[in-house]
């Protein structure tokens, strides 16, 4: 049972943060696409902006790893 709970906690840590990243990226992505239609020279900046929320899922991943590996 304890193992199941640990796995579930790790899944939640990465799952929720992945959803949050996806939501943020969808908003930034659509705004970025709009900006690119007007100013194609912003492509580099928009790529970086889209990559910014990925920190959340990376942090989620780190937490999940710690949950799974801590004894």
């Amino acid at each position, binding site marked *: 049972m304890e193992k199941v709970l640990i796995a579930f906690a790790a899944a939640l840590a990465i799952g929720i943060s992945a959803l949050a990243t996806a939501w943020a990226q969808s908003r930034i992505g659509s705004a970025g696409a709009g900006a690119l239609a007007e100013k194609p020279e912003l492509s*580099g900046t928009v*790529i970086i902006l889209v*990559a*910014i929320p*990925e920190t959340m899922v*990376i*942090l989620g991943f*780190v937490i999940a*790893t710690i949950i799974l590996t801590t004894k």
Partner: protein
Amino acid sequence: MIVKMSKVEIAGLKELLEDTLDLLRDMGLFHIETETMGFIEKAEEEYIETFSLDQKALSKKLLLEDLRLRIDELFSYLPAVPTRKSYIEPEDVVEILRGLVSRHIKYCEGLKNKKELLQKEASELSRYKVFMEAIEPLIGTLEKTEEIDFTGLTIKDPESIPHIRRLLFRLTDGRYELFTNRASDGTLAGVIVTERAFSETLRKALSEERIPEISLPASLEGLAFSERLKWIKDRIEEISKEMSSADDELLKFTMRWRPLYERVREWIDDRLSLMRATARVFETRLCFIIYGWIPAEAVPVLEMKLKERFSGAVTLVEKEMYEEDLERVPVMLKNPPYFEPFELMVRILPLPRYTSFDPTPFIGIFFPIFFGMILGDSGYGMLLLGLSVFLIKRFRSKKTIKDIGKILLVCSIYSVFFGILYGEFFGELGHELFGMETLCVERRTAVIPMLYFALTVGASHVMIGLFLGFIGGLKRRAKKEALARLIDIFLILSIILAVSAFCGIVPERFTTPILSLVLILTPLLLLTGGLLAPLELMKSIGNIISYARIMAIGLTSVLLAFVANRLAGMTGNIIAGAVVAGLLHLLNIILGVFSPAIHSMRLHYVEFFSKFIEPGGRRFEPFKK
């Protein structure tokens, strides 16, 4: 590197201004300053004013601008064909061309109008030709007489023919004939033959019913139907000959005159750009003064050139740079050949201030390392190496693609290097095929050591950034800010040590001194960095954790390569296995190029540069051709 600039003032006799500007433009290293703040002393202000052209120069400028417009108008009539280059001295022929240009415009305009009229006539005749070809077999050699009249029609809907017949029957009491035939363009052509007495009524009725009537041009009147088609064909041929003759004339004119006009236009542009530049110059009663910025290393060169050309009549004075000038010094980036391609990645960032740092060398050093750490597969690295060599060789003339190739070349070398350390060659294929062993760490299983490694890289990178921020602060003489950066470094180190002590990596007896250090440094941080400084510190810690992506993205890459090989093995068929493995490895390579590139860039732009790069620099825009 941000090039060191000198603040200079060039002064000389007014009549030498144009030549001086010419020299500065040829040199292409002088940024003319229009703002006099910091250049003119308070006591001098009343004697110096903006330069204005005298009456003679002004009228010359207007004449040149007018001639430039006329040449453009003339060029709008000429065909775009390659012509020879003229080497004639433009200044000698300007006056002659000024007299000729109106006549030339009129001549070319006449040819163009003639061509347009001929084109219009040809298109109309082509329409009649289609119609005539369709009805000729219907009428044959029927001659036009005084009593009989022919009316041409275009019938859009064939189903309307019975309706037209009923209409004609009603109008002519059945004394008519309607012939129809399919024309070559697909439309239905028709001819109504009836007595002349009904013609007017018939035309009116057709117009009311919206049935388009074809009226033949006046030149065809009086000709028999059989002769009309021949006449149209002959005329179309004649028009084509006339048009090609007009084209030949225009081409001949272009080949003869365009090179000369082009040479003069270039010369006019050259003169006008000098005259426009005078708006950025200042004057006293007898002299002109140009204020501006020039790379410090170019000052002696310019001084020498001015001396050689004007024998002391134009002088250069290097002025003292004040603290408030630092905000306005234009920024020019210059890097050694290795770092130059990386400027491509810096261009999407705002320009750093003069007192800040050029981010290019840092990107040039760390970006390929991070890329290699993330991709970390010698097989993929070799493929990318091949791709980069291809890009460099194939696109020699396209600088951007060549630069991308050069960046990829360095990144792929690091990927091969880290691939050897991780023991990866298309995942674990290297181990299976030729017994390749892990030299350092196996990423697939050693998740926690890799996490520590990534965080250590992050901590080092962020602290380098903070240290550069400290140096930048000293350079700008912002001592408080510099001190805050230094305290940040010590606090981060203390926190890392405290965490290590908590985890048992550092002996427990160090915990108390470390925590005491944190307690002493925190108020100092508040004093130097303000109330938001602790928040900044927490942000820096978050930034360090963000480097965990080096491990995370790398892990996904290695797992995908592992899955590709496992799936290939599970198919049990060599061909199917090769296809599955090939496709998955291809997908991994594509991801392996984009993911590490984007994440390494992000680590630089967001985590690293925010610590020491001060955006808002003014671009160095030298006066040049």
